[in-house]
């Protein structure tokens, strides 16, 4: 799009006090009964070794569970009942550890599937009317279409696949994709040509050229993403997996060699206890929840109605340090709107308002409607009737519009044009006019002068209105360490005024698409990661160049291909939400990793003295919890290790709450909650489990 193009979803006559655009959210309740039931069943289905291999840390627990089960069954015949109770419970909870990990995945996937289900309804097979080169039509199932095919879609029909409108114009209901009930206009050429398969034509007839093959359409990709089916590990997730796997390897070595040291000390350990120790030490909590966090992150993007082409894009969003924001549509509503009536000295304000209202009643431009709205709201003027009135349309020559009614003529327009008109009619231009007009122009607004007959009444202040709440958002971005740059085609004066009002850090005035490209390159050369939004074909290079490019769904196919995120609501303000979702994903992983590793300290304090109790009872000093006996200590720790996964599932699915704060403050906060909390929590919970569960069971 051009820098100044407006989005078509902007409803006419927006009131300045209207809140930020409504956002449709496909949120799903965290624990829905049907999802839970399905997830429980899936937890068992996922015991398939091929599935288990995808989670290396849990796979080790899985192997350990099988091994200890075999040993338990082999030895149960000739072991004492008390030992069997202990070892049986340990084995049972090792299995629970695996199942709980599977349950976390199944929950995340189940929630995704529930979202996908609603999408899938729209993907029913439709019959496409394929337009042959000779102009004849032939019916063909939508699944058999290939790229480049042209189809005719008439009123009431579903569009058979993703494509561009190449002929005609139509109102399209895209609520299945965006959730927005208001239909949108799609027309050939320009920036509103892209249509999505599964959406419905409400008026007229269009010819659509198919741009993606069946099975690879937008809808298909979206379904795949929310179901987690096509999820690939993101760069960060891979790095974290490396760290966790290495830690696990260290613990495998530590536990295996511990057997040698213990044997030397005269405290040979049973395999079941050693496996239990390994499972306690391995970072099972984060290992279990890692992929659920990733699926949930993708899910949250979809909840914001943003489609990510990859998980990598979601992560990159969290890293953004510079936001390039188009003024129009993102920071301002994009339409100049009347904000006040400024009468000249000696003129009654109400008279000016009435004249302005009359001159604009028939004016269907957004500016005209905003004048009517202002007059009605502030002066409670009734909408006048226009019987016998003659409308004067705006032309490029006169640069005025107005009305002739009952012998009086009312005009509104540019200051010089109206002044000339008044002079021609024998009137004089008052001295004070410039004093009113000048400041408005200087502040970036547009002054519209209103005259009735030969008398100049006053000035209407038209202003590009900054969306409410924008300044707060910008301040939040600044706290997150993100610099905001407003891009506009306006002159520097106007740009400066709006930039100041919106609270952006920098602005680029009179910017061309080339300027935008250069700016992205400069930012990147300076080491910044740039995010931007765009919807036009000429935005495509910039979208591709930016580290995070958010294409508007209303935009062209080229723009959508170039970006790595597509905003289905076409709401550029959402760029800021996207950044937060990206951050949340990483913070959740980091927090649970820290928590998981810190847990180990307490587990060591419990397990090692218990295991060496036979030869070094004095080591019990280390066990500050004073648990019932060595077996109950180990069992309590194993139970804790399993159920902590369950406790953490809501956190993994919802994500750690992100508040606008600097990195150091956030690190301090998270270290306190998840680091110190991770050190202390197991002490408390293991003691409770020992006290309430294992003790009464009489394990010894």
């Amino acid at each position, binding site marked *: 799009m051009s820098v100044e193009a407006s989005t078509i979803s902007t409803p006419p006559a927006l009131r300045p006090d209207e809140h930020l655009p409504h956002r449709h959210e496909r949120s799903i309740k965290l624990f829905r009964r049907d999802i839970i039931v399905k997830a429980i069943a899936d937890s068992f289905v996922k015991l398939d070794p091929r599935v288990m291999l995808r989670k290396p840390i849990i796979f080790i627990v899985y192997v350990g569970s099988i091994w200890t089960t075999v040993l338990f069954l082999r030895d149960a015949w000739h072991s004492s009942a008390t030992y069997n109770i202990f070892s049986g419970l340990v084995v049972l909870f090792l299995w629970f550890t695996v199942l709980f990990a599977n349950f976390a995945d199944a929950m995340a996937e189940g929630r995704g599937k529930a979202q996908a289900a609603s999408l899938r309804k729209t993907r029913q097979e439709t019959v496409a009317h394929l337009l042959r080169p000779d102009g004849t039509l032939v019916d063909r199932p939508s699944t058999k279409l290939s790229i480049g095919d042209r189809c005719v879609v008439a009123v009431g029909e579903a569009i058979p696949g993703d494509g561009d409108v190449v002929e005609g114009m139509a109102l399209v209901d895209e609520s299945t994709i965006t959730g927005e009930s208001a239909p949108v206009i799609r027309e050939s050429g320009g920036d509103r040509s892209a249509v999505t398969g599964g959406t419905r034509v409400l008026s007229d007839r269009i010819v659509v050229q198919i741009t993606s093959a069946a099975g690879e359409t937008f809808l298909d990709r979206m379904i795949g993403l929310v179901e987690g089916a096509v999820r690939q590990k993101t*760069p960060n997730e891979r790095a974290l997996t490396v760290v966790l796997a290495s830690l696990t390897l260290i613990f495998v070595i530590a536990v295996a060699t511990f057997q040698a040291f213990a044997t030397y000390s005269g405290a040979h350990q049973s395999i079941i206890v050693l496996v239990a120790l390994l499972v306690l030490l391995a970072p099972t909590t984060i290992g279990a929840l890692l992929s659920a966090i990733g699926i949930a992150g993708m899910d949250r993007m979809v909840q914001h109605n943003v489609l990510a082409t990859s998980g990598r894009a979601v992560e990159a969003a969290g890293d953004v340090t510079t936001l390039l924001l188009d003024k129009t549509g993102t920071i301002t509503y994009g339409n100049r709107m009347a904000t006040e009536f400024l009468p000249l000295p000696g003129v009654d304000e109400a008279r000016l308002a009435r004249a302005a209202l009359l001159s604009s009643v028939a004016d269907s431009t957004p500016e005209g409607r905003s004048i009517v709205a202002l007059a009605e709201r502030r002066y409670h003027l009734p909408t006048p009737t226009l019987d016998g009135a003659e409308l004067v349309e705006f032309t490029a020559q006169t640069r005025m519009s107005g009305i002739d009614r009952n012998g009086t003529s009312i005009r509104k327009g540019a200051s010089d044009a109206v002044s000339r008109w008044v002079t021609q009619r024998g009137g004089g231009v008052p001295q004070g006019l410039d004093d009113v007009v000048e400041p408005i122009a200087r502040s970036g607004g547009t002054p519209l002068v209103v005259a009735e007959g030969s008398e100049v009444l006053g000035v209407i202040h038209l202003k590009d209105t900054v969306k409410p709440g924008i300044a707060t958002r910008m301040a939040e971005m600044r706290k997150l360490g993100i610099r905001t740059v407003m891009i506009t085609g306006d002159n520097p004066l106007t740009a400066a005024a709006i930039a100041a009002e919106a609270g952006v850090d920098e602005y680029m005035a009179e910017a061309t698409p080339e300027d935008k490209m250069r700016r992205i390159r400069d930012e990147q050369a300076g080491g910044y990661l740039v995010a931007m939004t765009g919807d036009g074909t000429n935005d495509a290079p910039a979208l591709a160049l930016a580290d995070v490019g958010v294409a508007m769904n209303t935009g062209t196919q080229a723009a959508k291909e170039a970006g790595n995120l597509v905003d289905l609501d076409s709401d550029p303000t959402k760029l800021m939400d996207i950044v937060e979702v990206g951050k*949340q994903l990483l913070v959740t992983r980091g927090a649970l990793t820290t928590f998981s590793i810190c847990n180990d300290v307490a587990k060591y304090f419990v397990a090692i003295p218990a295991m060496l109790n036979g030869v070094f009872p004095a080591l019990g000093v280390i066990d500050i919890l004073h648990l019932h006996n060595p077996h109950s200590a180990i069992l309590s720790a194993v139970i804790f290790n399993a159920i902590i996964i369950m406790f953490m599932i809501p956190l993994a699915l919802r994500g750690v709450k992100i508040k606008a704060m600097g990195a150091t403050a956030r690190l301090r906060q998270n270290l306190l909650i998840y680091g110190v909390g991770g050190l202390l929590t197991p002490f408390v919970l293991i003691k409770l489990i020992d006290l309430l569960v294992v003790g009464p069971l009489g394990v010894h």
Partner: protein
Amino acid sequence: MTVTDWLEVLSLLVLLAISTPLLGNYMARVYANGPAPGDRVFLPVENFVYRICRIDPKSEQRWRTYLVSMLVWTLVGGLLTYLVLRVQGSLPGNPDHLPNVPEALSFNTAISFMTNTNWQNYAGESTMSQLSQMLGLVWHQFISAAVGMALAAAFIRALIRQRQNTLGNFWVDTIRSSTRILLPISFVFAIVFMSQGVIENFNSTTSVTTVAAQATHQTSNPALQQQVPGGPVAGMAAIEALGDNGGGYFNANYAAPNENPSPVTNVLLLWLMAMIPFGFGWTFGRMARSMRQAGVVLGVMTALFLVSLAFVVPLEAAGNPHITTAGVSQAETAANVGGNLEGKDLRFGAAGSALNAATITGTSTGGVNSAIESYTPIGGAVPLFNMMLGEVIPGGTGTGLYGLLIFVLIAVFIAGLMVGRTPMYLGKQILASDMKLAAIYILVLPATVLVLAAISILVPAASASISTSGPHGLTEVVYAYTSAAHNNGSAFGGLSGNTTWYNVTLAIAMWAGRVFEIIPALALAGSLVRKRTYAVTSGTLRTDTPLFAVMVAGVVLILVGLTYFPALATGPLAEHFSGGF
């Protein structure tokens, strides 16, 4: 603790506080490869060496070339040492006519010195000729230290450069480390040590009559005669400490009066050991143009070092409860320095010895002046744990810095996630490939130590070398492999190391601990140097704050603690709690 004890501890800290900025700034100039102080003296020498060796000092190397240069250089040096030791009987510089060194011992010693470990399965005065000491051993004490310093310089460059391929020139870095840092400082200190009574001569072993014999006029009694070996000791004592080598001229090492005669030389030696590792922290800050980043590195090094001192010095000064039970007073009196004096030299007392134990293990030196075997269980566990930390408080010459920086990268990774950004250190993104290399670096040492120690505990041929039963014996074995793999070289004592099993497996541990640490470290440097540098905003994790320093210290302690806790629990902890300490 006596006044001398306090003076020793405080003067060491003051000397380090003075030398760290001075030496740090100087080293930054040396490795910046621009004009540096002393160019008029050093440049002609260096240029002469470059010309002879056909080195182009302007050309730079990628990490693989840098690594290959280093490996070839080290291997050739090691081979040379092996040869010298094997034929020393036929070579000059052997006034005591010592025979050739046996194969397994020569192998172990060559590996030991080329890896900067200086584990000694021999007694210097009765095994090594003077030529072997100088040509085979002291030579390595210079170059193995210089190699570590070169690697640290390369690692720093990797962090401060962006979108480049090369890390510097291994030959230039090694030569400049030697000519400008190691040689001048050890030269000066060798002379200082001679002034303090350390010997420097080429005499053969002299038979002297002891004071006791003279007092009793029994000068012809052979039992009252003492054999005093000669040798170029002062020079070796200096570089042994400065290069964090720790291989002494005599078997008694820094307990030998002719090598470390007084508390003054004791403190000077400890200062030399810690001088370069701490200085490198400062050098890093200078080169990275952020003294706050250096503050984090130096802060973590200093804090953990002080904590280790705070454990071992008071523990040893307080004495051994079992000795008290036996009816011996360990209280400090005018005539008695007090504390746990078993296995310690009266010149240094309990505190001066404990100060040495903490410093030689906090640095990668290993030049003991007391028998760590005789320390209290926890007192002996402190030097062991210092090594287990990965030789980073402050660690070896150069190796300490990049070792700690790799821990920093792991802390950055976890902390970076927690602030919601792809982890970045000095503007460089830390990704999966970097974490893989860091993980290998962290994994190699515990894997080597634990596996070899576990086998040695179970294999009868190996466990026969253990001198004490119970947890103390386990500590002997774990200590030996920890010392070898971490290239420290200090001995716990008690374990008979000069057997084929230990000569070979300890050599493997030393080799693995050196080479399989350097390869991932250099590969990591190679990956870092290619990365672009991203801008730092308020959303970026600050890695120059006290909070982050606490995080780094936490990561080091938790990672190492979790790894070694089972071994420590069955060793020193079991001994402490079950042994009535």
